[in-house]
């Protein structure tokens, strides 16, 4: 009964999205940029590409910090510091995403003087860091200390042991954590509102305003045009399929790994 109540929203959302979204879904939707108001057709190809661009840059900024931070926490940090950092990253995890948006605005948009994909990527990276850090740290804690001691006994410096023995051992877990974080930030709209800002045209320059899929959906959904509403539904469908796809892939992959062991 309760299981049904939990599953029902997902099924309803999927059903409604497929119903409303497939009307505007065609090849042009994935290959063209938005048309001016009133002209039928057009697509959101620039938003899809922009989303991938921003999330890729966010991963570039956020993932190394998260992984190396976790390595430091589990291998080097004194227990007291570890607890403090763990608590802080847990609370950072609960900070509303719009706050990361205004932070990136104050830090980057104001100093650069214009909206840019970089600013959006920084805002998303702030969200990714605590997520990646926590999963990586939990993974690192599962490595038996005998492995680390074996490395140290061979005279390998500690930083090399951490980088080349401990971290590769939990590679799969780290990849899972990173992908989960990517799936999480891929759908974030609020931090991009006044950082990446959106764009109706192609843009591959990271210092210029860039379109993103969630932003485009938001702009279309609150617009007064029937045609744009249809496109918003289709965009939401694409977004949901992508995020669900990543999540399901992770689930299947981790199941396979755990049954193999």
């Amino acid at each position, binding site marked *: 009964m309760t299981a049904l109540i939990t599953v029902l929203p997902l099924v309803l959302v999927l059903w409604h999205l497929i119903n409303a979204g497939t009307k505007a879904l065609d090849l042009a939707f994935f290959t063209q940029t938005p048309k001016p108001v009133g002209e039928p057709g057009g697509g959101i190809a620039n938003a899809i590409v922009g989303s991938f661009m921003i999330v890729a840059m966010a991963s570039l900024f956020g993932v190394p910090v998260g992984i190396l931070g976790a390595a430091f926490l589990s291998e080097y940090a004194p227990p007291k510091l570890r607890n403090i950092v763990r*608590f802080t990253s847990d*609370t950072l995890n*609960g900070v509303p995403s*719009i706050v990361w948006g205004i932070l990136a605005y104050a830090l980057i948009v104001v100093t650069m003087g214009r909206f840019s994909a970089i600013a959006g990527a920084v805002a998303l990276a702030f969200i990714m860091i605590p997520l990646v850090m926590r999963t990586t740290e939990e993974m690192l804690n599962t490595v038996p200390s005998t492995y680390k001691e074996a490395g140290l006994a061979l005279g390998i410096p500690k930083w090399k042991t951490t980088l080349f023995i401990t971290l590769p051992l939990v590679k799969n877990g780290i990849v899972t954590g990173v992908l989960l974080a990517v799936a999480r930030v891929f759908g974030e709209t609020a931090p991009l509102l006044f950082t990446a800002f959106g764009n109706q045209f192609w843009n591959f320059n990271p210092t210029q305003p860039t379109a993103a899929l969630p932003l485009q959906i938001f702009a279309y959904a609150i617009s007064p045009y029937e045609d744009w509403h249809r496109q918003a539904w289709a965009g939401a469908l694409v977004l949901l399929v992508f995020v669900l796809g990543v999540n399901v892939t992770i689930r299947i992959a981790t199941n396979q790994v755990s049954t193999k062991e």
Partner: protein
Amino acid sequence: MTTPQTQREAAYALGATKWETIRIAVLSPAKPGIAGAAILGLSRALGETMAVTMVIGNRPEIAISLFAPGHTLASAIANEFAEATTQIYLSALFELGLVLVLVTLTTNIIARLITVRTIRRFTTPNP
């Protein structure tokens, strides 16, 4: 989930039915943890921006009716940031952000403290 299996078995051994076992041995010791999780969920919802902005109507007044348009902290920032042209307007929106952070931080910290205490109670053996 952190409720020890032995507790459940103890309840069964005393002749409790399935539902009684869940109530006595699982739910009631986990009460603080469940409360903590609920508060965590609350703070997550407090900061939710986009889903709220799209449907709340964005009118800057305190509505008496629950069915009238209004504002939340997050939706006000999202909606008005792009049109904030003067320094004082921007500062006001930043202040809304500060209030939002403080509110969510407080609820989060309370929730964490509660859950951490519950987990600790189950992991350290009682005297």
